């Protein structure tokens, strides 16, 4: 493992994009920051500017109105950027996939590197998912 990959793995800055979700995923992502899970231990932190992001966490089903915003954000991100679809909604559209405003699961809009299913995935699962993505 080169120094590059090593450092990359050790220092992941996350950017969170919430689509039309039910909020549970959003809350569980936020929960990862709080004392019980504290992802800062692994050098991960949430950043507020997509320019600083290494990982784009997308949760929620994406409706037509969100789709453009998601595309825009993805194009603004500096590469390499990893995209993680969080929650059943992010992976497949979940229970909202048949809705009349649904614009396709995340991977139909931007390439996705990892899927973390669950409705909502537990914070442990989110952390584990990102760690697995790194060891890919």
């Amino acid at each position, binding site marked *: 493992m080169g120094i590059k990959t090593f450092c990359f793995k050790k220092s992941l800055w996350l950017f969170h994009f919430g689509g039309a979700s039910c909020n549970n995923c959003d809350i569980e992502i936020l929960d990862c920051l709080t004392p019980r899970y504290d992802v800062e231990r692994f050098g991960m932190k949430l950043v*507020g500017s997509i320019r600083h992001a290494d990982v784009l966490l997308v949760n929620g089903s994406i409706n037509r109105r969100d789709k453009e915003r998601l595309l825009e954000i993805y194009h603004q991100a*500096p590469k390499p950027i990893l995209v993680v679809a969080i929650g059943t909604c992010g992976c497949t559209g979940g229970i909202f996939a048949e809705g009349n405003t649904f614009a396709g699961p995340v991977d139909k809009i931007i390439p996705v590197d990892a899927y973390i299913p669950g409705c909502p995935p537990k914070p442990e699962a989110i952390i584990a998912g990102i760690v697995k993505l790194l060891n890919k």
Partner: protein
Amino acid sequence: MIFSTIIYFLIFPGLLFASIAGGFLSWFDRKVTAMVQFRKGPPVLQPFYDFLKLLLVKETILPAKGSPVVFMLMPILALVGATLACVFILLPALNITSGFNGDILVIFYLLNIPALAFILGALASGNPLASIGASRELKLIISYELTFLLILAAVIFKAGMRINLQEIIMAQADTSFIGSISGILLFIAAIFCLQAKLGYVPFDIAEAETEINHGSFIEYSGSAYALVILTKYILLFTLPVFIGTLLLGGLSFTGINIVYSLLKILAIVLLLILIRNTNPRLKIHQAMRFFFVWMNLLVIIAITLSIFGR
């Protein structure tokens, strides 16, 4: 001669040493913050991972609007300024060379370079949010620099009108300046100046959030941003050392004094962190009034006191 200058600049006590020391201090900062919030906090090497990742792995996106050349040059300028300041402070402080007359003023100017460079960089990025950040930063500089200058003047006065860092240190050989009432007042003012210079709460006005580097740096990515955070590490190390030198009797790297010196720096940094963690952010005009009125007053009182030898 040239060779040793390069060593001084690049390795010790310059770029390499200062960034490593600053990196550790940055980790210290995050760790203490985490502990206040019942969290565990990042590993020791985290600041270095962050830096290397940004430098080596990430793509640097040039702004579509604005001026890419200025945008890219400014982080370099900031880094050079910070490093030079660091070298000029540390050489006399560590008793390597004796410095030169008036170096304290040069240092003052050098310490201003990073902030100014960031402002220019932000303006060059063409992002509206970044320019809001830049204009705030500018206002902030105007407010705290006067205080900082007054502090320097007070120290020079206390040291018997000497404007050489080495001599200021020597003047404190028996008791540090902080041992007097005026010294304490100066120290308080200096800590707030540092807080502002480092962009820490309550003066992180130019960056929108504690955790987020928004504002001025919103458009920086990849290696350009790596330089920005490196500059911040160096400043995080340099500024406390500078205050330590001016008011706490300098540093020494011989024998047991190493421990004392380290403790001094850590204590200053700890103070900064605690202030940062227990205060919400100020509004820009509040910050300006804070420095213009209260801090300047404080320093002037200190000067007056020191005239009477207190």
